């Protein structure tokens, strides 16, 4: 019976993550259209909801072409690597008190480890394409994600100090009195910026900047392999939103509604935030991006740890 329950949770969590991120393709196009004062896809099904299905069918039947000059095995592995590393953190995120795939004691470190490994999908995809634009995209991705990873980990240490644990369920429980977004406001801002860079979304989508690099690291990809990169991006948005909610906005905590509903509602709000930022902000120059990470955000993250640690030590 326990095994059955566990199986349901595993399938449910990963099914929900995948279907939400597929639905995001439609949501993003509709919301962007709303903010840009146009309609967006509204022809297929009610409100254009079946657009996702239509796009999926289209992608399945496209020619799956591997360039003859590409490094074949690495070219095939790269998109899978990206999808798996983005999907794995959902295993440690608690959707409700008992609904979690693996309640690891090092849950937060597991998330950081997986986001560190997700660089490989992009970098290897760009390198294996053996194309100048793809390689430039991959080089940018490697430098950008390494730089932002450094203070992404550091910005979360304030949360760890307050909760006294790397376990995500314990971090949520520690927020019963007050959500972390108030005492750890600086950490929240830093983590959100790092999250945008990690998922290489606008305004930090320099690895695939279509105005200068054709399509960046996935220039040579087509068919379902491109589809994996595409879904991987939305999966990343869902994952980072869920992490922001878990770490800073009390996860499943909230009055009246059942815990899962609170978690889904909060996550949905942050996903919409991701899309709004894409509609609002332009892309920075590359040297500005790197300078911003190392000269502004890293010192702020260190300062946050120092002040949080000092206050916690003084109180106890």
């Amino acid at each position, binding site marked *: 019976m326990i095994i059955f329950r566990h199986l349901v949770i595993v399938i449910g969590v990963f099914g929900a993550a995948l279907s939400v991120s597929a639905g995001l393709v439609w949501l993003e196009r509709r919301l962007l259209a709303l903010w840009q004062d146009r309609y967006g896809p509204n022809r297929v099904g009610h409100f254009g909801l079946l657009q996702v299905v239509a796009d999926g069918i289209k992608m399945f039947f496209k020619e799956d072409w591997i360039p003859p000059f590409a490094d074949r095995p*690495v070219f095939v592995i790269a998109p899978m690597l990206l999808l798996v590393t983005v999907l794995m953190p959902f295993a440690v995120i608690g959707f409700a008190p008992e609904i979690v795939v693996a309640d690891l004691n090092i849950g937060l*470190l597991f998330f950081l480890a997986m986001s560190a*490994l997700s660089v490989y999908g992009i970098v290897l995809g760009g390198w294996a394409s053996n194309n100048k634009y793809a390689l430039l995209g991959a080089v940018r991705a490697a*430098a950008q994600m390494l730089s932002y990873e450094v203070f992404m980990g550091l910005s979360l240490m304030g949360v760890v100090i307050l909760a006294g644990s790397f376990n995500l369920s314990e971090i949520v429980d520690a927020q019963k009195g007050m959500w972390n977004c108030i005492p750890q406001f600086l950490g929240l801002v830093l983590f959100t910026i790092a999250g945008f860079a990690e998922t290489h979304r606008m305004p930090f989508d320099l690895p695939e900047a279509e105005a200068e690099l054709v399509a960046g690291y996935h220039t040579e990809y087509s068919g379902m392999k491109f589809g994996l990169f595409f879904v991987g991006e939305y999966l990343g948005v869902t994952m980072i939103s869920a992490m922001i909610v878990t770490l800073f906005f009390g996860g499943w905590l909230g009055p009246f509604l059942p815990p899962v509903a609170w978690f889904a509602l909060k996550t949905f709000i942050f996903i919409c935030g991701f899309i709004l930022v894409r509609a609002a902000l332009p892309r920075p120059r590359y040297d500005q991006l790197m300078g911003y990470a190392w000269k502004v955000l890293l010192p702020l993250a260190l300062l946050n740890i120092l002040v949080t640690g000092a206050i916690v030590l003084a109180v106890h």
Partner: protein
Amino acid sequence: MLNQKMFWKSSLMRLLTRNEKYEPMNAIFYISAAIAVVSTAMAISRLNAVHALLYLIVSLLSVAQIFFILGAPFAAALEVIIYAGAIMVLFVFVIMMLNLGPSAMETERQWLRPGMWIGPVLLSAVLMAELVFVIANSGSHPAGSHEVGSGAVGIALFGPYALGVELASILLLAGLVGAYHLARQDSGNQSEGEV
């Protein structure tokens, strides 16, 4: 047919469990150890530098898995975050920039002639013999008998080993300052906007 299957299954179980009670962790340990050994051997023998690096990453991941089984989850996580996730990315980054073509693979092939293997193999064989001798003469220890959490690691690092941590951080700081000095543009010759 069924009998044969049962026979293989039971002998496999006996091989994995020996005389102790059945421990799935032991089986996982042997599998990850085998992956570590094979991927390290592949990392040495691949001609394509990026393929070799990929095998090295797999090797690091399997070592992290072994750490996890042995009851050191914190060390396992750091192994993945720092070695597999940061340092190896830099390696891949550099190799990507070098743009090694078929000529580099040809050079590599010449370096990896069978004659080159004799010396290292002899030395490793001596080490291997020593290892077998030591293991054969010591009692067996159960894997993962107690867990070393992140708190215990922190207390050890900033307690008895504080001096070592400080020395390592000074070394890193020196490296950082040196890298900054080497990469700094001479502001007298070239202003930033000229490029």
